């Protein structure tokens, strides 16, 4: 398979890429490197991971990041209630109070407690679990929401595809997972993490590409309306706004237009549905009325 074939297969699963993204995905797969996707919200970063899972007919393991995310929720946790029960059982079985300090006491307890049976596997450990039949897709979503401590923990996983559990040993992937990391760039992620990945900035799609995406996602929308919708969104992205509309917003809006069913895209319709494209009150206020009317006029001009 080459880059073009990969792009076609992704398209067959409803995900349209330009050649730059196709190359990054291709190399990530070929060289078994994690893919670091950065870009504005709503350009399809997360979607790519689920489409890859579909394409390779494998499991998608998703880890949503947030501040304070730690090992216990991301990688593994010991099953403490069961451990404590096991401890009690063991203590009771021993003869007299001398047993606690007796020879082998501590070692015996350690052996009992730190077994795989007592290990709760969270997404990261699941992704490199030897029991899996085939490599899963691991999506580490919105890494910019996690904190620096978590990033440094990821280094071992992304560099060597392994996780070290102090009480048990090192777990290494038998099948290397396909790893996709996403970031909305609410902060800069450390270089050490990026160095272990292939970096790709996903921009807003070019006009023709977005037209094709809308055609596939909202087939009910008439051809001329589709052009006008995409043209309007592209003009909107040239405006001075707090948050520009992403592809997801374009698709939502196209769907709304198709339900409303106007014969032609006009300013009142756009005004009334502006909330689907712009998510900040300030932005809506800034655009509504004259500015929208002007952009619509430019967009529907033949």
């Amino acid at each position, binding site marked *: 398979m080459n880059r073009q074939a990969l792009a076609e297969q992704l398209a067959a699963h409803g995900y349209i890429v330009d050649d730059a993204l196709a190359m990054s995905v291709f190399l990530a797969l070929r060289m078994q490197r994690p893919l670091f996707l950065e870009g504005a919200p709503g350009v399809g970063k997360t979607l790519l991971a689920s489409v890859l899972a579909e394409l390779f007919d494998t499991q998608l393991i998703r880890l949503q990041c947030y501040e304070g995310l730690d090992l216990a929720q991301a990688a593994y946790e010991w099953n403490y209630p069961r451990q404590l029960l096991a401890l009690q059982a063991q203590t009771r079985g021993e003869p007299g109070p001398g047993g606690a300090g007796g020879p082998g006491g501590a070692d015996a307890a350690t052996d009992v407690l730190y077994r795989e049976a007592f290990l709760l596997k969270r997404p990261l450990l699941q992704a490199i679990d030897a029991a*899996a039949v085939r490599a899963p897709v691991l999506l580490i979503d919105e890494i910019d929401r996690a904190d620096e401590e978590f990033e440094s923990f990821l280094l071992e996983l992304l560099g060597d595809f392994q996780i070290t559990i102090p009480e048990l040993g090192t777990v290494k992937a038998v099948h290397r997972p396909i790893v996709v990391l996403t970031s909305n760039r609410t902060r800069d992620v450390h270089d050490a993490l990026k160095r272990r990945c292939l970096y790709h900035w996903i921009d807003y799609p070019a006009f023709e590409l977005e037209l094709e995406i809308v055609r596939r996602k909202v087939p009910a929308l008439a051809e001329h309306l589709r052009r006008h919708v995409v043209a309007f969104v592209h003009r909107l992205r040239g405006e001075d706004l707090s948050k520009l509309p992403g592809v997801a917003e374009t698709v939502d809006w196209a769907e709304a237009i198709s339900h409303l069913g106007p014969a032609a895209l006009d300013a009142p319709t756009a005004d009334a549905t502006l909330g689907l494209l712009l998510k900040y009150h300030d932005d809506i206020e800034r655009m509504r009325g004259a500015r929208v009317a002007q952009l619509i006029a430019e967009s529907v001009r033949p």
Partner: protein
Amino acid sequence: MTGAAMTGAGPIPDGDGPTAGPTAGAPLRDLVEFTRALRDRGLPIGIDHGALFAQALAYVDPLVRRDLYLVARATLVSRRDDLAVFDELFARFFGGPAAPRPQATPLAPRHDRSEFFKTALVAYMAERVDPSAREVEVPEHHKAASGHELLQHKDFAACTPAELEAIARAMRELRLDVALRRSRRRVRSRRKGQLDLRRIVRDAARRGGRVLALARGRPKLRRRPLVVLADISGSMELYARIVLQFLHGVTQRYLRTETFVFGTRLTRITSQLQIRQIDAALDHAGRAIVDFAGGTRIAECLHAFDRRYARRVLGRGAVVLIISDGWETGDPAQLGAEMRRLAARAHRVVWLNPLLGRKGYSPQARGMASALVHVDDFLPIHDLQSLHELAAALARIPRRKSARQPRHVHAPKAEVQR
């Protein structure tokens, strides 16, 4: 597709594996030179990137320029802001317009050197480099102590170069402890906090299965990020140099500092101030700044900050310091709107105004009054003493974001804002 195939040559099984070495297309030397040129322009490229690049070329036809471009970009670029430089250098090395990028990041405007040499910062640096200037009255040790006292209350604007030098030394000892916030992480604690079951079980295992003590964890405290926006326009000229020195010191000791300067446009100088050597740091900062000692358009610059950086640097309960005399040449109403937006994102907004140290000053300057409504602390920054006050104010910032009280501005009602 089987698992075995995935572990072999990657998830895409393919008959024709690596075919051509990197030398098949552009000579290897060109590729090495290209990588070096990127590094010289500040792209963070390590040896491993070069290797990755060469390795990746094996999977495509390096004779196809578009393939070469895409592979180089996928392996060598790791920041969006570097894409423009990358495109420019690629075109220079391998010819042609590299690739039409939709919405390409505009390149920073070329720095006009003649303009640069007129700036006050350069004058200041020349002073420092000039050996004769260096010899001026280094105070004797016993004098230094009493001189230090006097300097505490001497307005920066009225200081001689030698005094500024002494102030700069004193500033180096100033500690800036930005208030803490609760992070979501936990650290060990003796008595308070949630039970740390992992530790309890581990301790018990060591003691043959007996739980003898309950380990606990409480939220870890972390310093808030500090974001500084400093005015370096003409009206701030007398303060700008000392403020930059101050910011260099802050950045050196407190790494979570983001610094921007503004006059008619906004410039991020965080990375320049991270250079340890102060002369080199200020020199680099000076090169980055294109509008030193010009006019002021505060609202416009805050707007640029909001659009380009706010989302990236104002997370995690940041404390914002604005250093400006509030002499806005634009629309005061717009400044108010920008300040409202900034205040909504920041944990606390501190406005430092050197004029506040002058007797009889009241903030009626265009813009200052409208901005003040959205400011939590309004403090002077004109002498050493005021820097100590700033340190104290930052240390006592409350953990919870305070509801901003519209500030009472001591302005005679009759006076019309000019």
